[in-house]
């Protein structure tokens, strides 16, 4: 699998929490993911929802997705068109939730990636390539559990397909 899209970076870059991804105040008022997608990142980057294109890539530093367990966070990113997230590290609930709903996450160094730069992610080769010559980073290919979930389209489709958990 390969994804090509524009990088979006935010300030702050570390510890971007799920409240910033989608504010808790929307979790009761809106339950249509496409509506929710219009508010994604709005507290720290009000222009993001209007400028993101299908397949674009969110780029962050450490501990992306910390905070609440709301699954609306990865779902809103996905509904907004985000094809993958690249960060130095993730908070654990967000990490699970993303694979459970079919949003791939990549863990590698991100300091070299500029906002707006076009990135190509090669999941099988384990490499992210930027625009300027030589700019790239490799990552450890996904653990097989995560790859299985992505291949099946998420956790619920996985359970339906196999009639339970099937990781080997």
């Amino acid at each position, binding site marked *: 699998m390969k994804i090509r899209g524009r990088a979006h970076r935010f300030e702050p870059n570390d510890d971007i929490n799920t409240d910033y991804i989608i504010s808790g105040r929307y979790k009761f008022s809106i339950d249509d993911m496409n509506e929710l997608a219009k508010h994604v990142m709005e507290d720290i980057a009000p222009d993001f929802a209007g400028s993101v294109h299908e397949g674009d890539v969110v780029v962050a530093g450490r501990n992306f997705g910390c905070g609440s367990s709301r699954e609306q966070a990865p779902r809103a990113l996905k509904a907004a068109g985000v094809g993958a997230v690249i960060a130095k590290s993730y*908070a654990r609930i967000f990490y699970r*939730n993303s694979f459970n709903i079919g949003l791939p996450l990549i863990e590698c160094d991100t300091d070299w990636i500029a906002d707006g730069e076009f990135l190509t992610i090669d999941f099988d080769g384990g490499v992210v390539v930027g625009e300027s010559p030589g700019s790239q980073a490799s990552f450890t290919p996904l653990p097989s559990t995560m790859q299985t979930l992505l291949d099946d389209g998420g956790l619920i489709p996985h359970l339906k397909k196999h009639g339970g958990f099937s990781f080997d």
Partner: protein
Amino acid sequence: MGRTIAEKVLSAHSDTDCSPGDIVVASVDYCMAQDGTSKLMISELENLGFDRPKTARGMAVVLDHSSPSPSVAVSRIHDDIRRFSNAHGVELHDVGAGVCHQVIPESGQIMPGDLVVGADSHTCTYGALNLCSTGLGSADVAAAAHTGRLWFRVPDSYKVDIHGELADRVAPKDLILDLIGSMGADGATYKSVEMGGSAVDTMPMDGRMTMANMVVEMGAKFGPFPFDEVTRSWYRGLGVDAESGVSSDEDAEYEKTVDVDASDVVPKVAVPHRVDDVHDVTDLAGVDISQAFLGTCTNGRLSDLRSAAEILRGKKVANGVRLIVAPSSRSVLLEALRLGVIQTIVTAGGVLIAPGCGPCVGTHAGIPSDGEAVISTANRNFLGRMGNNRDVSIYLGSPETVAASAVTGRITDPREA
């Protein structure tokens, strides 16, 4: 080789002898969701053709985050949840029961040694009861309810050894804020943080819950406490027998051991907008506040209300300050009423609201206005957390600090109140 609490609990629930890094599919004893996360979970369960919870001791849903309902939209969600729980044998804790992380432990449905999951990040609170519990998303909890099982990566463990004694008016909240400040918001990501030591041995259950509640603020997966006489007698108070628990082996391997001397800890405040940006209260004394909030799954328990009332007794909340109080459950409220604690707080000018989350996540009941500063006993101070976009500053402290600050209208060292 010796094993930690997390390794023992996950081994026992997966019929394996697992070590950190292994991925196991484990049986789950209990699961829960709240009104903010149930809707997605219900649609995922419907998709799966859900009938009854397969978790060993069942499942609960708690209406606490936006409760009683502030809008027609939320009322409809609450209605859907009521219908769902009726139809599927799920225990419903309706409006007024309290915050999930007090209601579930009080229900007597979760026991030492259990493996528990919840669609709320602070599900780690139940670690105080000597079990492994963790917050997950709606799909994961749906999977646990539907199959009775879930996959887990076996975490490495940290040991936090807390010795010494907390000084007067220094609270378990200050201890955990201090720890988060030194570890950082991702200082324990994916880890099981085992709490222990002489200061924990003498710590009542309320304080243990405050501490376990916040381990997720440093990224942790589980925050198990020891099983001891405090655990046993807490269960006895519920009318439940808890004779044995799970403890780590002498030679268990910890990735890291952290030593804390409780007697060195002073009242702490986390400043906007990071939970790990922690300072001594004395550095912040004098910051004007408009709202003080006493409650939440971190600090809305009886001992919290009592400590606050002790400071508020015979005093008045400062002019221009709103002190909002949300007991963490109906039984906490009843006990606080019986002891005159509520009388004291309300006489001082406090505003009592329904047991539940209150304004913690900004959906209702005390949303601050533009430019205001709030001192709160909650566990998170993220930008926009209490319902306002960018223009509210949230400071986090102990019940003692919140009460002392409500009286002066400024962040105040409770040792001087």
